[in-house]
Each structure stands twice: as C-alpha cells, then as structure tokens.
C-alpha cells in the first residue's frame, strides 16, 4: 500500500530524495485515527462550519492543495451544495514551485499543474489540505494563491492537524487534532487517490 510521509507528498514516487518512498513492511501502523465514517463526519462538520463562519456561500471558493487536498476540496464543495443548494468553484494548486527547500532538493520534484479557473480577486478562498504539520506547505500555498490575484480573505481547512508547527500559521477548520511525535507519520488514505479511506498513524520500524 503506498503510504507517504506528510509534508513530502509531492515527492512520492521519485527515485531519490529525503525519506521519500516509504516501503511497505518497514512501517508499522500504530493506530487508526479516523475511519471511513470518521472522515465523512469530519468533512460534513467542516462544510457546515465554513457556511456558518462565512454566513453562506457568497464569494466563496475552495482550493485544494495537491495531491490529497484536491479530492477533499471536491467533497467539501459537494456537501456545501447539498446543504445550501449553491455550487462553489473548486481549484487545485501545486505548490512545488513555491517550496522553501528546493535549493536542498536534487533532483527537483515533478511539477503538477495548477488549475484555478476562476478569478480569486475579492473572493473568500478556503485552502484545503489533508494534514497540517510544519506549516511550510501552507506558507507556500499562501504565496501561490497571492500570485494568482488578491483574495479578500483566505481560510484554511485541514482534515488532520498533527502539530509541530515551524511557522506562525493555524487552521480555521480542523477535522481532528492529533498529537504526534516527530518520529511518527500521519497517512491519509482516500478512495480517489489510494482506493481506501482512513487516517492512520505509522511509525518506522527500528529493526
């Protein structure tokens, strides 16, 4: 099963890099944080919170951070449609070109396409990602969105917040707060990308 280390998702599948490919077998699953139902409920709650906080869906748009933020953003948009009967636009963002560690990465990771087909000017943008860790991905995403235009407001929704922030950034909507140690990893598996649906904590076997 393809697991990945959070914060390095964009490196998955590359032949070299920093702790990129997590080999099955060398990783031990410690606990299931969210199962299928848990993910469903968390997303439903976040959708309600987004609508409540913004008093509706006026000017609202969701932008998913590649790769697993994209299916999550689509699901949130679907729920918002069910609740409010309004469609909100969904974009996808690749933050590779905005990373602060490119200088240390050789080779450079593959760049996926950014697809934001709406104008971000004056909009309330909700960035969506799967796991929040150091905050560096979100920092890069903020810069990437700013280069597309000047939104009125940017909010952040994440499925899991695992702590260990290295930047003064916090999420507005959190599916679940999970205290972790740095040695552990949080893996989000989604039907769209992984053919399974759960959030697990893993730890590398020292043996």
């Amino acid at each position, binding site marked *: 099963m393809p697991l990945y280390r959070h914060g390095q998702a964009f490196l998955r599948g590359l032949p*070299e890099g920093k702790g990129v490919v997590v080999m099955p077998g060398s990783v031990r699953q410690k606990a299931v944080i969210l199962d299928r139902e848990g993910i469903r409920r968390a997303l439903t709650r976040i959708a309600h919170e987004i609508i409540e906080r913004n008093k509706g869906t006026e000017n609202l748009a969701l932008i998913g951070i590649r790769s697993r933020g994209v299916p999550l953003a689509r699901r949130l948009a679907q729920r918002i449609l069910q609740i409010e009967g309004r469609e909100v636009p969904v974009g996808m963002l690749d933050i590779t*070109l905005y990373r602060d560690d490119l200088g240390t990465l050789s080779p450079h990771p593959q*760049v996926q396409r950014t697809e934001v087909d709406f104008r971000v000017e004056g909009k309330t943008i909700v960035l969506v990602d799967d796991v929040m860790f150091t905050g560096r991905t979100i920092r890069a995403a903020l810069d990437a969105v700013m280069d597309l235009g000047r939104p009125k407001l940017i909010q952040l929704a994440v499925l899991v917040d695992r702590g260990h922030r290295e930047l003064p950034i916090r999420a507005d909507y959190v599916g679940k707060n999970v205290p972790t140690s740095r040695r552990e990893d949080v893996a989000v598996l989604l039907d769209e990308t992984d053919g399974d649906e759960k959030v697990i904590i893993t730890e590398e076997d020292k043996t």
Partner: protein
Amino acid sequence: MARMKKDLLGLEGAGEREINQILDMAASMKEIMGRQIKKVPTLRGKTVVNMFYEPSTRTRTSFELAAKYLSADAVNISSSTSSAVKGESLKDTAATIAALGADVVVLRHPMAGAPHLLAGTIKPAVINAGDGAHEHPTQALLDLFTVREKKGRISGLQVAIVGDITHSRVARSDIWGFTAMGASVRLCGPATLIPAEIERTGARCCTRMEDALEGADVVIMLRIQLERQRQGLFPGIREYGRLYGLNRERLALAARDALVMHPGPVNRGVEISHDVADGVQSVINEQVTNGVAVRMALLYLLAGGGAVEAAD
C-alpha cells in the same frame, strides 16, 4: 542504476519517457505564463548565463524570459561583446563563467559539438541552444509540445519536414524527437540539401513535395538559411519557392487538420506563403509561446541537478 542527466545536449538517443516528463512539466509551466503575475520564486538565487556565439532573437529572449519567470538571474553574452573577440577560447570563457557562479549555461555556437565540449569541462548544467548544423533540442521539444497539445498525441502521426535538411539543426533534433515519440517522419528538399544516409535515422526522404505532404498531420517548414548557402547547392530563391514553398494548394494535400509549423524567422513568400503563415492551421506564434514554457521546464529540471533519468 538510475543516473541523473546534468545537461541537455541533444535529442539523439532520448527516450519517450524522459521527453514526456519534460513536456508534462512544460504544461505546468505554461499555466504560469497565462497568469497576470508571470513569476514564481522557484529559482531565486540561481544564475542562468546565455552565451550566444551566433545571432538570435527568439531563442535568446525565450531563454531569458524563461529564467526571469522562474526568478533566476539571467545574463546574456554575445560573441561580439565577449572576450572571444580578444581571442579567448570557448573553454576559457566558460571556465570564467562557471567561476563567476553560473548554475546553468545556455550555449549557441556555430560549431557542432561545442556544448558537448563545455559539458565535459564545467560544473554548471549546459543547455544546447543550437550547435552548428547538429542539434537544436529545445526547438524540437517545443515542436513536440505544440503537436502534443494540439493533437493530443504524437505517436502514429505523419510529420513532414521540408527544406534544407543538410544545414538544419532543427530538422535533426526534430527527426530524433518525433521518431522517439513514435511518429513517422518524411523529409523533403532539393536533392543537394538532403544529407546522405539520413534515412538511417528512421526518416523517409521524398523528392517531390507533394509526396511528402500527402496525408501529413504536421508540416514543419524550415527556414532557408541564406547565410549557410555558399557552396552552390541552393537552386535560387524563386525556383526554391516554386518547388518547395508551402502554399494553400499544396497544403490541401495534407490532412485536413494538419498543423503548419515553422521554427522562425519566416521568409514569407519563399518557404511559406503569406496566407498559409497566417492561416488557421498555422501554429507558428504558439510555437514561440510554448518555447518559453519548455525552456522554463528545462531550467527548473537542470538547475535542480536534473530530474531526467538517463537510460543506461
């Protein structure tokens, strides 16, 4: 063992997988060029040096813009303003540039093999921007990108390349590139300007232009390089235009949705007529735009140590 390529010297021997990797990356880069703010911070602090020992507007500007869109610093050196006029050798000039801290050197040179010489002697990545009549890989990559974008595929297409094949580095790189991607290449031009044994590349030669155009999906017209015609191999502009110029009647022989391409600069009325150059099938201007995207992708890949896996 997978090995990373440091340089882009030519498309001879390039594989479908690595070409596709560059084209995919270029597609991501093209999105940036469509933005209001055409700049990403990716290559901040990196330096790209353009060494052009031959005149060029579009390729040099294209590399310069590609570097700037990625926030790299770009420095241009042309032969007339460099120490080359004082007799400094290419190798010494390059060593100086490497010592000044360049990360990528883009080289155009009248001698075939000059970039290969550099690549073996200096640490920065070297990109061949045209070496003599040998290769012009970035032009071929932008041609491939344009065809893939317009047609959705390259494999199985019939590609006609018409003009002075002997002196054309674009033709050589295009032959390698399109053949590697699974297209069939037909060549056409005056018999004096078709090199011997070119069919060993897998391309087919046609004497009559009509045969080359018949059912072609892509028509690449080469510029008649009058600066390289000194040996009496060229029949004369009017005769050339009559026999090998692309006009509307000839284009009708190609597939109905055939693309018309030209590496530029265009000699209107010689190798291509005005109405075809400006016609709906012409993608000449899009080629220029795509050239920047392809070069951004290459600068990104090579400044990061090269993510293109070489086949061992």
